[in-house]
């Protein structure tokens, strides 16, 4: 099974799995130009994620190891999500009862998420988990699990 890892903590990596280490890789921001929909369908004007796009779209499963930042996902991960818009079509369908962009590819990977639980309260945690569920639903992926763990404290 082809897999991929996107990580903000942990040192996991698998020899046959593509790794995107968000700590070492600041992603260029989406500039809202719509080139990826209007001029070069499916391709962003920035090329820093070309390798990621290929591995993401051909993986069967993507595992995320996330940190919590200001009670939400980090700015770098949010930037990655913004930059995933070329993986979908501009056309909108309403079949599910709400607006949703059509898929560009036949299939998208299943998602598994682990995160370091540093929330101030359960409301923040619910918002974070609901947001991730929703995002991957809109990305036409199935979220298999979202698991929070308290970070280990080293003495």
């Amino acid at each position, binding site marked *: 099974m082809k897999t991929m890892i996107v990580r903000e903590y942990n040192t996991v990596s698998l020899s046959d799995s593509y790794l995107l280490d968000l700590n070492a890789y600041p*992603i260029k*921001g*989406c*500039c*809202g*130009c719509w080139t990826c*929909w*209007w*001029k*070069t*369908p*499916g*391709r962003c004007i920035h090329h820093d994620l*070309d390798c990621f*796009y*290929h591995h*993401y*779209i*051909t993986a069967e499963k993507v595992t995320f190891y996330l940190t919590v*930042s*200001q*009670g*939400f*996902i*980090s*700015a*770098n991960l*949010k*930037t*990655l*999500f*913004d930059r*995933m*818009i070329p*993986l979908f*079509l*501009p*056309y*909108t*369908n*309403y*079949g599910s*009862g*709400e*607006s949703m962009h059509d898929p*560009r*590819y036949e299939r998208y990977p299943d998602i598994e998420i682990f995160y370091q639980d540093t929330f*101030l309260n359960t*409301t*923040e945690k619910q*918002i974070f988990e*609901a*947001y991730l569920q*929703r*995002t991957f639903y*809109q990305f036409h992926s199935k979220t298999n699990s979202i698991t929070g763990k308290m970070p280990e404290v080293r003495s």
Partner: protein
Amino acid sequence: MKTLILNGSPRADCGNTQLFIDHFQSGLTTPLPVRYLLREKPATLALAMNEYDTILLVMPLYIHAMPGLVMKLFEELKPQSGHHPKIGFIVQAGFIESATARYLENYLTALAYRLHFSYLGTVIKGDAAACSILPHFFFGRLFKQLKALGVAYEKTGSFDPLLVKKLGKPVCLSKYQVRLLESRLVNRLNQIGWNWILKRNGCFKNRYDQPFL
């Protein structure tokens, strides 16, 4: 009351967010200062925010939440001690129904609490993606409502709840709206806009490309 408007769009003053700000400002007797997240370092802006007692952050919805650029600013903010400045948000989006911004609205409420800001609320307006593309008369009613929001803000220092409700409609699509939008005719009409742009850019035949397989 000293208010700062922040524009959180990656398109800065060339996009729909700027139109929202302009029409809001047209309801004020004295325009408010505007700063752009795209043009300044998040740390600089975070510091500048301390000089104001109210912040209005206007932004587009990006993947059901704030653009990455806005999250960069949020990461720089520290909990307020002593006085509790106010913060309010105006979010405009492409999808018709405002419910898609609920995830962001919930987070913004929690963020204000986390940082000890006094929360003015979040105004959400969907179906706004074509504001800066189509002729302005298509959006006459929206622009009037934004101006009225500005008038009310200057008077009360808050968002008029009636206007917030109006701008947020529809919250969800009704069964009738879904049937209409899914109908062949409306579906074709919706695609015309995209296809016209794709044809004008000479890439209509590439519209279904899958470059990363």
